[in-house]
């Protein structure tokens, strides 16, 4: 057998080996590592998961490199937010040559359905508002409450492309949801009231009022655990943020974002605006600034030096630093660091 034939045969054998290695496992590609983390929870042994954007990367601007299109080419399932955050994803889908994962196809999943979007633009829908998101704030993964509908949508996608393992995925999704409830509120309150009811209260903004009620001689707040308990010092706290990344997190934990370092989304801070923010911080006595760590450090550090505010540079997504290997660790990281900053 001559050399070129031998190489050809080896290439064919290698290709089939690779195919066999993946046989039986769905290949799921998500835009963000946060969604990938949830897919792993639900998909378990039957999925291999990859994501297009890095955890320390600005999710708005992921260059649609050919190597990312190759990942999508092989995907059985593609998971994206579905709003106007990942504008770069459509370029990749068009390049990927994978009919199964095009918009509306069986392998295409958007995770926003079932989520009540915040900061929906009403009358001012133009670029005078900067790089505006026309459907509302798309940074939905920053709320544990939103992980529930996100997981439901992912479950639907998995069941569609792999109906044979539907009950396996359903069971794991239920366990994931229960884990989220308990991580959020603690076991005692979840067992007493029910996780979904508690989440509904958080959604309505009445959770903190509710837990002030007495039940059997003591206030419900005494039964609170989980992130909600850890994050109690954040309730009512006023903060500054660099960009509108934190809307859902702030809503859930009762924080108020009083202003942004960017004058408008996507518009770099001007010296005049920075001065305005310094004044706001001093007048309002704000002591914490939240900055996704892919933004610059210079201006937040300058503001911190002039006002005494603590600038917290936080990874926005799973994998943003080695400590945050899944969504639960990400939430622990945020709450621990923000509470510590607030306490100082």
């Amino acid at each position, binding site marked *: 057998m001559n050399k070129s034939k031998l190489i050809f045969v080896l290439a064919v054998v290698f290709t089939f080996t690779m195919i066999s290695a993946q046989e039986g496992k769905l290949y799921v590609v998500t835009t963000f590592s946060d969604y990938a983390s949830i897919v792993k929870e639900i998909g378990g042994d039957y999925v291999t998961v990859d994501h297009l954007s890095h955890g320390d*990367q*600005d999710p708005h601007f992921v*260059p649609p490199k050919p*190597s990312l299109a*190759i990942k999508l080419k092989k995907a059985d399932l593609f998971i994206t937010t579905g709003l106007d955050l990942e504008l770069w994803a459509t*370029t990749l889908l*068009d390049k990927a*040559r994978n009919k199964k994962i095009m918009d509306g196809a069986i392998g295409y999943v958007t995770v926003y359905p079932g989520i009540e979007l915040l900061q929906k633009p009403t009358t001012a829908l133009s*670029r005078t508002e900067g*790089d505006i998101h026309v459907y509302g704030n798309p940074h939905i993964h920053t709320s544990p409450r939103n992980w529930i509908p996100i997981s439901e949508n992912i479950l639907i996608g998995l069941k569609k492309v792999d109906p044979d393992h539907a009950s396996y995925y359903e069971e794991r999704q239920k366990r994931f949801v229960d884990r989220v409830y308990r991580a959020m509120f603690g076991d005692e309150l979840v067992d007493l009231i029910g996780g979904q009811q508690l989440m509904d209260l958080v959604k309505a903004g009445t959770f903190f009022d509710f837990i002030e009620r007495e039940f059997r001689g003591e206030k419900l707040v005494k039964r609170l655990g989980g992130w909600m308990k850890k994050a109690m010092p954040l309730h009512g706290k006023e903060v500054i943020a660099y960009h509108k990344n934190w809307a859902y997190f702030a809503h859930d934990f009762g924080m108020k974002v009083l202003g942004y370092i960017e004058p408008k989304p996507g518009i770099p801070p001007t010296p005049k605006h920075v001065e305005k923010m310094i004044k706001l911080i001093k007048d309002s006595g704000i002591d914490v600034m939240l900055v996704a760590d892919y933004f610059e450090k210079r201006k937040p550090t300058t503001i911190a030096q002039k006002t005494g505010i603590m600038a917290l540079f936080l990874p926005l997504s799973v994998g943003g630093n080695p400590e945050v290997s899944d969504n639960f660790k990400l939430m622990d990281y945020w709450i621990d660091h923000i509470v510590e900053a607030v306490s100082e």
Partner: protein
Amino acid sequence: MRWITLFAGCMFMLSLSTGVAAQKKKDSDIKKALSELDSLRNCYLKKLKDLDSRISAIEKARKEEKEKAEMEALLNAASDLSRTKKKEEATISRVFRGGQRQLQALNPNISMTGDFFGSVSSGKSDVIVNDGDFTDGRNMFYMREAEFHIIAPLDPFTRGKFFLGIPGVGEYPLSFMIGEAYMEWLNLPANMNLKIGLFNTQFGILNRWHDHGLPQVDRPRVLTNLFSKNNFAGIGVGANFLLPRLWAHVNELDIEIVTGGDGVSFDDANDNVIFVTHLKNYYDLSRDAYIEIGFSGANGYNDKKAGYRTTLVGLDITYKWAPVDRAHYRTVEFRNEFFYSHRNRKDGAIDRFGFYSYISNKLGRRFWIGIRAGYSELPTVVNKEYEWDITPYVDFWQSEFVMMRFQYSYTYRSYEENDHTFFIQTVWSMGPHKHEAY
């Protein structure tokens, strides 16, 4: 007797006193009993009264609780009802309106780009007026382009794109010009996307880019000398194949057949069939950097009637470093394209060479600086005339949608006088836009 009488008297007195005492005791007992009875009666009356009042209190509390529960139920019902919309009754007051005339939601994504610049040049207008000259030396403002981009899915299988330009002052004053107009099938067999229509060919890299998207104000001299100041475009068919992984991380092949050339390298006759091909080889060097190497080829008539053909060959090499976590603030892009032209003619072929190379460095969220060098031998001229340029520039990005550029070009020409040109350019975009550049 006396003793008996006395005894009897004593006995009588004794019995009398005993009787009286007994009576007194009896009376006392009765009184006591009566008193105790009274006391008991009072006690029980008091208890009864207490019980009565407790029962009243309980009944009252129950009543209040019931009323409160009823109130709560009422308020809950009110709350539920306030979220429920009452079904509208159909009456003759209903006015009917059809939706057939109001389907704006199906309009395509429409965006518009303006490309304006001013230039000051040392060249003289009667000296530098050649095909391919970007500026003829006049010092003035140009509205180079006002371009509509109209993009939409046509159906689940195809996309349509129109790029309609209104070029500014020049030989086509304020006329409407179709830059590109094509539709594209996606996900065809053999990993192919297929487009038909009028499009800029994938010869090299920059040839596909529209003027407002160029990394400098002007196209490199080698491109304008090969294809005039416009892109090398044609009407035809273009297939893009995503190849199996060969020697690169991604291999992509374009094969295009178009008619009608640029009028310089290729005859612009409508029946001049030109073949164009490009092979892209993309390598991820790390998560922050990539290198891309491409090979291009094109062949068509430069003189259809006489039957003479031109063959163009190109090599493009691009290196880009954009650290993933700092991409807003740091990027280095180093791009090079090399071209070789073999032009057949009556008295022998003309072989010419040219290239450009630029490096752009992002210094912060808003600023880029860069420099371009280029060399181009004139491809249609028998004498080996050439020119080279050195072009530094600074870009200021006010936002993602408004950019200003300051550029200086020194162009040396072997066939004409050299010139110094200063440009100030502004490009602005309105409307939705797709992220395609990487």
